[in-house]
């Protein structure tokens, strides 16, 4: 059953249909939000908020839009809001301990170390570069899709992704040299 079918069924009163939709997209939402916010706990909050907002707004879902793109548009904005709130509080939720504790693979020390280092490296990127990089290379969206959901021009997105790649390599090389 396609996402669109599930949207229609939800709007017809089938409450379980949306649960199916949520189950289908939650892992990707959690992944993006975790990488974006650097905290699994914050990612869960933002993802829940996103899904609830999507559920409420379902009657205005545009049938021509991919549900995932629409959902990610909400998620991206929720993450931006969360980062904005965090900036106002002038703090960064340390992700390392959180990631280790909640990681699905806590027993693999090398993987855990990598994830911690990746979290640190991602954190070093400006938020707009991190967002563009994750949407492009982790969520594997097309630039046109990202432009639609973020309101940023394709050319600017390409530049952000390029700069993010360069910066990530620099950050990780420094780490590699250090170990």
């Amino acid at each position, binding site marked *: 059953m396609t996402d669109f079918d599930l949207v229609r069924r939800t709007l017809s009163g089938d409450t379980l249909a949306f649960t199916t939709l949520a189950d289908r997209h939650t892992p990707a939402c959690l992944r993006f939000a975790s990488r974006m916010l650097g905290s699994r706990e914050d990612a869960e909050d933002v993802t829940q908020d996103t*899904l609830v907002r999507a559920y409420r707004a379902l009657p205005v879902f545009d049938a021509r839009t991919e549900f995932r793109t629409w959902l990610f548009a909400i998620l991206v904005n929720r993450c931006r809001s969360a980062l904005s709130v965090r900036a106002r509080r002038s703090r960064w939720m340390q992700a390392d301990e959180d990631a280790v504790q909640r990681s699905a693979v806590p027993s693999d020390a090398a993987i855990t170390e990598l994830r911690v280092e990746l979290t640190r490296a991602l954190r070093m990127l400006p938020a707009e570069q991190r967002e563009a990089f994750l949407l492009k290379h982790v969520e594997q969206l097309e630039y046109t899709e990202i432009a639609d959901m973020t309101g940023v021009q394709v050319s600017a997105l390409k530049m952000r992704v390029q700069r993010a790649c360069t910066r990530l390599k620099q950050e990780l090389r420094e780490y590699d040299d250090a170990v």
Partner: protein
Amino acid sequence: MRFSPMENPGEHPGGEQGDVTGLEDVIAELRREETVRPEWRARLEHELASLSVPDGTVVQRGHARSREESDGRTNTRGWHLRPLTAMAAALTFTVLGALGSSTVSSLLRARESGARETGAAVIPAATAATAPASPGTSNARTATVDGSNTGVRFAVQAPGVKRVSLVGDFNGWNPAATPLSLSRDGRTWTVLLPLTAGRHTYAFVIDDEIVADPAAPRSIDDDFGTPSSFVLVDHSRGTMP
């Protein structure tokens, strides 16, 4: 695990994808899906169950195009107005804290007047909208402040359209929930809506097309890719679109 970034990344401009050479392992790790904790899922399910079921049909914005015709690469912001609706939208979209007035300026005058007449800081326009007029008074401007009885009149001039409704955070963005009624002039659609104090995001749906109110501030929290405006309802200060 060691990373293998390029030696001189600055010398390689990369393609439009960004040069990911040396980041393959990193990207593979970042793509690992996050597991969903059962406790979290139960919490989500509980919250969804507490919400009313969204009611409505899927809105097809802009020029009608079936999903089958769509190439799946659609622009969520790329809706277009039909000419008739565009003309209607261009005429005026006005959210009024209803005082029986038809313009914002008269609304503002009424507020100022009310403040002088009553000695209150400002007559809350939203309150005045639904507060019963005093006996022998044909005008709601003399209404007194009553925070428990509030309403905001939304009005839009849209001649020649079949239906207009209001969607917003107050009705779950359900286009079937709040239809506007056509006034006797045959062009003005209105609805009086009780709203709680606070910020409300809304848009009009004119013949199935979602249109923000150009006379009101655009919502910066436009996170559905949907054109929308917002109105502030403050029972102590009036309604401020």
